[in-house]
């Protein structure tokens, strides 16, 4: 066909053009100067589900349902024929009877043979329907994403893999006083006054996409134009668009300034209260020290025990102010602090008496923590005072959960319980306190088993566990 239409001047086939045209995958037409179709390749017949009978000899505009009869195309093809101006990528979207809706890019070029000024027009049809549909889907998805992004109150940006901004939410643009154009294409580290140009943040961000490693609550505090000093928590995670293999990063800026300020105010207040309480307790301990100096030696132990009780209460305030979970008391920390204070206040430096804590990780009711701490203090003080006349021994403070109860055991490897004598009456006060604290806590003293050597006191305490943690 083409060989018939593109003959050599001597009538021989000096160029087998049909072979060339047939191997081109796009649909092609060869037109004369009146846009009558001289030839078509197989791809044309296949793509438009048509035949040579319905194509050859007909004018381009008459084909099919006259889908190519477009006024704008007329002028462009005239330019191809008259002026030799190539036509590139003229887009036609049409509902074709046999193949459905298609988007076709038309390109045309005039071809002249030596000595032949009339020439031919080669018209190529590139079907870009799939690409256009994908682009449209992508646009719709992106519009949806953008509308979701704009409804989120926290400022956020979406970043490309190279950390440049694809889009920023309205909240982000409003808060930082920039336009979408200002933000788009720039790196986060370049925005504003470079507040986000922090090496540790950059390091975290570089892992979000390649390692799918999100991060939360990266805190940045800085002065921002028109905002003043602000604190932001930055959170980032990988996002994937449906039907798209590319990944992007969502970076959210949570303004936590007010919350942080409230926390700081609360901490300052806690510190101030703690400072005053401890100073008042220090005054009481000092007064006791004064009294102890003017008191006969047998009473000094009593004063020291009193100082130790005050210290046990003081430990509680430290634990409450340190606790990140409100006023919940971690019993293991509490016991360790009490043991440390007892060691330093009741035992001489280099003493051969040691105190060991074996405590399960339990949270106890803060309302009951003071009598519990004082109970432990009394039992351990009794052990230190009475169990080791030789000045050497070991005391174990242990706490474990037993059903809904807490089982407290204070054990020593000393001389064991001795029969009380009249001379020991003042020393009995500690045991009295034990009974009072056990009653206050609604506990039960478990009868001691015959165990040698030493003394073991076990007390079951119901309702001591923190109800929120139980």
């Amino acid at each position: 066909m083409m060989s018939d239409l593109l003959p050599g001047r001597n009538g021989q086939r000096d160029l087998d053009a049909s072979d060339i045209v047939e191997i081109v995958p796009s649909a092609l037409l060869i037109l004369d100067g009146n846009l009558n179709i001289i030839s078509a390749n197989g791809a044309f017949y296949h793509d438009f589900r048509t035949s040579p009978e319905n194509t050859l000899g007909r004018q381009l505009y008459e084909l099919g349902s006259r889908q190519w009869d477009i006024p704008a195309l007329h002028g462009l093809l005239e330019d191809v024929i008259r002026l030799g101006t190539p036509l590139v990528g003229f887009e036609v979207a049409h509902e074709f009877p046999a193949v459905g809706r298609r988007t076709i890019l038309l390109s045309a070029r005039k071809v002249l043979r030596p000595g032949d000024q009339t020439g031919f027009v080669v018209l190529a049809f590139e079907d870009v329907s799939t690409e256009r549909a994908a682009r449209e889907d992508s646009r719709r998805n992106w519009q949806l994403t953008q509308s979701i992004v704009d409804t989120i109150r926290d400022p956020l940006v979406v970043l490309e893999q190279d950390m440049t901004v694809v889009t920023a939410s309205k909240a982000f643009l409003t808060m930082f006083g920039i336009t979408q154009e200002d933000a788009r294409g720039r790196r986060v580290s370049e925005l504003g006054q470079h507040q986000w140009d922090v090496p540790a943040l950059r390091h975290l961000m570089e892992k979000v996409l390649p390692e799918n490693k999100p991060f939360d609550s990266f805190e940045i505090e800085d002065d921002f134009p028109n905002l003043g000093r602000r604190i932001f928590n930055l959170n980032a995670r990988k996002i994937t668009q449906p039907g798209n293999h590319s990944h992007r990063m969502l970076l959210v800026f949570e303004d936590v300034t007010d919350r942080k300020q409230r926390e700081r105010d609360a901490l300052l207040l806690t510190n101030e209260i703690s400072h005053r309480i401890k100073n008042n307790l220090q005054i009481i301990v000092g007064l006791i020290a004064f009294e102890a100096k003017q008191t006969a030696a047998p009473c000094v132990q009593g004063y020291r025990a009193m100082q130790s009780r005050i210290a046990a209460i003081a430990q509680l305030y430290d634990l409450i102010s340190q606790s990140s979970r409100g006023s919940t008391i971690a019993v293991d920390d509490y016991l360790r602090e009490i043991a440390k204070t007892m060691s330093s206040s009741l035992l001489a430096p280099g003493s051969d008496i040691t105190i060991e804590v074996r405590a399960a990780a339990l949270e106890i009711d803060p309302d009951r923590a003071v009598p519990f701490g004082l109970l432990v203090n009394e039992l351990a003080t009794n052990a230190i005072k009475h169990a080791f006349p030789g000045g050497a021994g070991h005391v174990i403070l242990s706490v474990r959960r037993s059903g809904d109860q807490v089982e407290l055991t204070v054990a020593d490897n000393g001389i064991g319980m001795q029969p009380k004598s009249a001379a020991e009456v003042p020393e009995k006060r500690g045991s009295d306190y034990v009974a009072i604290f056990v009653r206050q806590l609604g506990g039960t003293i478990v009868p001691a088993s015959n165990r040698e050597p030493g003394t073991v006191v076990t007390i079951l305490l119901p309702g001591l566990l923190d109800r929120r943690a139980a």
Partner: protein
Amino acid sequence: MAVILVVEDDVFIREIAEFMLLDWGHEILSASDVDEGLQQLRRPQHIDALFTDIYLKSAVLGGCELARQAISLRPELRVLYTTGNAITDAMKSMFVAGTECLRKPYSERQLQNSVEHLLAPQS
């Protein structure tokens, strides 16, 4: 025995501490805040150790700042802190290296142990 600068804004607590230290044979210098403490440290007098409260009047970490400046004035000075507040990591990060903190309320024995440890010969 040693010369110890006691810095504490609560007069009663300071005097009780001084009373105890005097009782153990030490010499005492007194101050109630950072400025007074620095004045004592800048005078041409011998001082072995600084025993300072951390929360001094309105300065939440005043004792930490005082100790830092004290060491720059007198690098050989021994330092013992005391506080009624919980000892946080942020607070610890401001401590002069190798120092300790005595928590309030401290007993006479606890203060004595801490001061003996403070003044012990360093290896």
